[in-house]
């Protein structure tokens, strides 16, 4: 009985593994609304685009902490440029995912609300 349960569970997990591979190959990042429509708030854009690496409150994670940080940048324009182009192997560029208004909105949120600059 227990053996049959384990066998059945292994089959389910094998199917889950295949589904995971299919998702890896097919799922695209969530793309924000195209330019010309209402721009989502910087906070919302941060949650959907940045929090996965930098933490929900900018406390850091796979990426560096943003809260109270950003000391390497001297102006908000530098951050906009950095977020737009990204860093190969470290952080994706967002100019192909977000419109200019959206990048400005999320950087403004990070600069003012999280970094306190």
């Amino acid at each position, binding site marked *: 009985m227990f053996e049959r349960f384990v066998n059945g569970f*292994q089959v389910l997990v094998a199917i889950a593994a295949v589904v*995971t591979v299919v998702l890896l190959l097919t799922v695209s990042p969530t793309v924000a609304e195209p330019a010309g429509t209402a721009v989502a708030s910087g906070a919302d854009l941060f949650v959907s685009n940045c929090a*996965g690496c930098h933490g*929900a409150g900018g406390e850091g*994670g796979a990426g560096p902490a943003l809260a109270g940080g950003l000391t390497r940048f001297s102006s908000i324009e530098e951050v906009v440029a950095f977020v737009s182009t990204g860093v190969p*192997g470290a*952080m994706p560029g967002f100019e192909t995912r977000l419109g200019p208004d959206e990048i400005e909105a999320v950087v403004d949120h990070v600069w003012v609300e999280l970094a306190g600059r």
Partner: protein
Amino acid sequence: MAIAVGVYGSVHDPAGQQTISLFFSNTLSFKAWTTTLILFFAFGQLYSALRIWGKVKIPKTMPSWWGDLHRLSGTLAFALSLPVAFHCLWALGFEPDFTELRRFSHSVLGCLFYGAFAAKVTLVRSPETPSWSLPVVGGVVFTTLVAIWLTSSLWFFTAVAFPGV
């Protein structure tokens, strides 16, 4: 398998987005605690394997379902690793810069884990497997998993937040 995972992580454009978080506040917390649970099952794997190979004597008489318990703990660990690996590969990608020691070693270890796991599953189902190979590959899987936990969950709990839920 290890190479395939590494190649995907390298060529895929990281999404940089959250994925599953269940009842945690964010995906990183979910991953840190899920990896800890995986480590728990990995220790279950280690102990049940040691009993199968007679290296420990408790329980004194090995129940008939002991082997199935060993398989179940391994399957649970693998199943739980899937959403974690999905976020690592899809959202973060492979870290090629070895000066970023934690991220680089974690990337390599993640690839090694799936390679070693695939080797173990293949060996355990092969009738002509040398008797020494399963403990060796199983040991590699366990060691890799411990190193993965050290470079991810432990780092998260000590450098980011604890419990960080």
